[in-house]
């Protein structure tokens, strides 16, 4: 119960604080709130856009969460999704003649594979070479961005456009949009994201592999002593994380723009970290958090037109405040007067400090 109430309260406090900020900027917070709600849920189209933004966040949130369960910090979802999208677009541009359903399935599988590979690299580096995944995933983000520019500008450039983008994919690749949402680009990517969440839930909670991943994340020494190979598990977890992020390409390329556009992602990869944090690294939580952030993203877009003093960037303020509230662990502890003292994080010298790093609650 507490596990649900806490984030919900945090979101509420964060939103109120965010509205207070807009009030400080000279807006009527009630008015702002109404614009937000109307912007995000006012019509079928608005709901559709909210879902469209939420879809990639589900994938990246899951990506960060899976890595985190193995005790790894995946800062590289941005690079992984870039590569996934690029790969899907490349397949569609190079073999435009393929027809449905083979075409989208192929492109989707390639996106998955590209993300997986891009995630497995830092996993392998961490497991076998001991270099930290935070650094490596950040660096690989830059590599992915560079690679994407090169491919989009020099290899399969769109000759009919001034924008930095690849040639459009063949017609057979496109995913249909659900009619319900007034033309918003909600495609099969959304049910796929929900399916991914379900599969992650099953994997983590029900399978031996999921148990091993969590065991490594909890205590490497104990996992190792139990015969689990922590290195192997880390590689698997990062590969999974990368694959999940790579799936973002499906909704973006096949379901929306029909090509790879440089800079299409408003940093979905980094927002995924916030989504995972708010969702407590649980699949259902990630889905809920992704919906919230999608709604914020859509809702705040209206602020540009409808208010005088604030713009859509307020979205970031809201996000930041919510995350602050969620991570204020000490405050929650104090409110619950928990017995945090008794089983300290660093019982027994040797294990303590190592086990302590980056422990989200």
């Amino acid at each position, binding site marked *: 119960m507490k596990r649900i109430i806490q984030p919900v309260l945090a979101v509420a406090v964060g939103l109120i604080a965010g509205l207070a900020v807009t009030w400080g900027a000279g807006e009527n917070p009630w008015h702002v709130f109404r614009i937000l709600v109307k912007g995000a849920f006012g019509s079928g189209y608005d709901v559709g856009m909210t879902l469209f933004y939420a879809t990639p966040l589900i994938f990246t949130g899951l990506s960060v969460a899976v890595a985190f369960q193995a005790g790894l910090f995946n800062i590289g979802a941005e690079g992984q999704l870039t590569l996934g999208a690029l790969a899907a677009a490349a397949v569609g541009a190079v073999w435009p003649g393929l027809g449905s359903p083979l075409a989208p399935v192929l492109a989707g599988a390639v996106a998955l594979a590209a993300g997986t590979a891009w995630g497995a690299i830092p996993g392998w580096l961490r497991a076998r070479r001991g270099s930290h995944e935070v650094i490596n995933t950040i660096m690989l983000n830059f590599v992915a961005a560079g690679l994407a520019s090169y491919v989009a500008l020099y290899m399969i450039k769109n000759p009919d456009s001034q924008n930095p983008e690849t040639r459009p994919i063949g017609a057979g690749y496109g995913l249909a949009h659900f009619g319900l949402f007034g033309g918003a680009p909600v495609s099969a990517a959304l049910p796929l994201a929900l399916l991914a969440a379900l599969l992650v839930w099953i994997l983590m909670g*029900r*399978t*031996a*592999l999921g*148990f*091993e991943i*969590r*065991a490594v994340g*909890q*205590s490497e*020494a*104990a*996992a*190792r*002593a*139990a*015969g*689990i*190979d922590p290195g192997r598990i880390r590689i698997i977890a990062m590969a999974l994380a990368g694959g999940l992020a790579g799936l973002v390409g499906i909704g973006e390329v096949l379901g929306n723009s029909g090509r790879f556009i440089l800079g299409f992602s408003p940093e979905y990869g980094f927002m995924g970290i916030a989504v995972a944090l708010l969702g407590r690294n649980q699949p259902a939580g990630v889905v809920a958090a992704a919906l919230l952030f999608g709604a914020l993203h859509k809702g705040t877009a209206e602020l540009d037109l409808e208010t005088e003093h604030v713009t859509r960037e307020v979205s970031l303020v809201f996000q930041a405040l919510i995350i602050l509230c969620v991570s204020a662990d000490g405050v929650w502890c104090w409110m619950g007067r928990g*017995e945090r*003292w*008794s*089983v*300290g994080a*660093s*019982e*027994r*010298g*040797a*294990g*303590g*400090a*190592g086990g302590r790093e980056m422990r989200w609650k």
Partner: protein
Amino acid sequence: MTSGQTPAVELRELTKRFGGVAANAGVNLRVKAGTIHGVIGENGAGKSTAMKLLYGMLRPDAGDILLGGTRCNWASPADAIARGIGMVHQHFMLAGPYSALDNILLGAEPVRRGVIDRPAARRKLEALAGQYGLSVDWDRPIEELPVGVQQRVEILKLLYRDARILILDEPTAVLTPQETASLFENLRKLRAEGKTILLVTHKLKDVMSFTDRVTVFRAGKVTGEVATAQTDPQELANLMVGRKVVLGLHVPPARPRPEPALEVAKLSLKGGAGSRHRLAEVSFAVRRREIVGIAGVEGNGQSELVQAILHPRESRCRTAGVVRVLGREVTSWAPRKIRELGVAVIPEDRLLEGLLPERPVRENFLLGLQRSRAFSVAGFIDSQRLSEAASVAVKEYDVRPPDLDLPAGKLSGGNQQKLIVAREFQRQPSLLIAAQPTRGVDVGAIEFIHQRIVAARDGGAGVLLVSSELDEVLTLSDRILVMYEGRVVAEFERGRVTERELGLKMGGA
């Protein structure tokens, strides 16, 4: 100073509940100033809880704490420390990568003009260390120091803060006999200076030789208090458990089968950075239906030996040698494959290697068995069967409280150990490697675990027992190997060696 009459410490009707469990249900305890006061009791009886209440780490639900007759109401350990109470925990509370010096200063940094005055602190500490003969390498990261030294650091930490009342929660559980002896020598010195010492322990021998009075806990209550001079270990054991306990199990001699469960041939290990010891041409065999005990002061290669058997591929510094488990050469095998041959392991350091402290008992029972046929079908875990098996085992091994959803880290130390033993025996092992299997376990549970080990032997398992507890090695082992500086320096048959001889061999004589 308190007068002779008012006790230095008094606990009155102290009560503390955790959820449904009453860890302390009206504890009454009086400790005279300038004495060493023993606190004993079964695992989970509430000893650590009472001590944590006294130290301000937990807050009582009801009852009072009195120091020298005045009532105290701690809000946090800081208050208790300010009033001269210090505690060394059952599981040390040290910051691994920090130096010994910084660990002592942590929380009590001597600040001069906004910076930590390390030289002054160092002088004070060196004086203290000299006074008690507690030598410590101040600048090495604490995690690289042996446990005995880590404990010295914990004690120095208390002395540095001028503690007058010292609480030691199972201080000797991880110490070698030599380290134990020097610890008690120091405690006596401290007592002579008028300090009051509360000693929680499971070792009746230590209680008998070093304490003035003893308080016995059972199920959250105090069931007796006696002067040490007027009691004996058997009486204490009975008071603790509430029934007659067999101290010194009688183990019938083994009838070993000829085929070996474990063979180690000419195993040599070059010491990696940081570890002094290595193995030099260690060769021995453990037959099925036989217990081979490895005696030795901790740090003479026993841990390396166990690692080399269980993780042969990772023992990168292995220069030579072969390990055969149940007739198969496993020198290049993955650890999991070795375990799947039917190898059960009770690891030396239960919190670090044996458990996932934040995960529930149920999941801890699964650890290592997640791919066994008993609990998994095609990679999926059968949670129904897991819960059933776990609750049966928890009952059979008397893990208290029998709550499968409790995080394992919240079990008392001895109950954690019972949980590990329960899990490992679930494998029905053909080879059992037990490192310090009864560390921190109460007399009743020691009796139980010992019986289990003997039963495993009689059921056909080969048992490799690594223990720094002489009594344990002598009682259980059919053969005893003594390790000293990475070599096997002596071998004895059951009953052919005295404790004294063994002690001498362990010291390298």
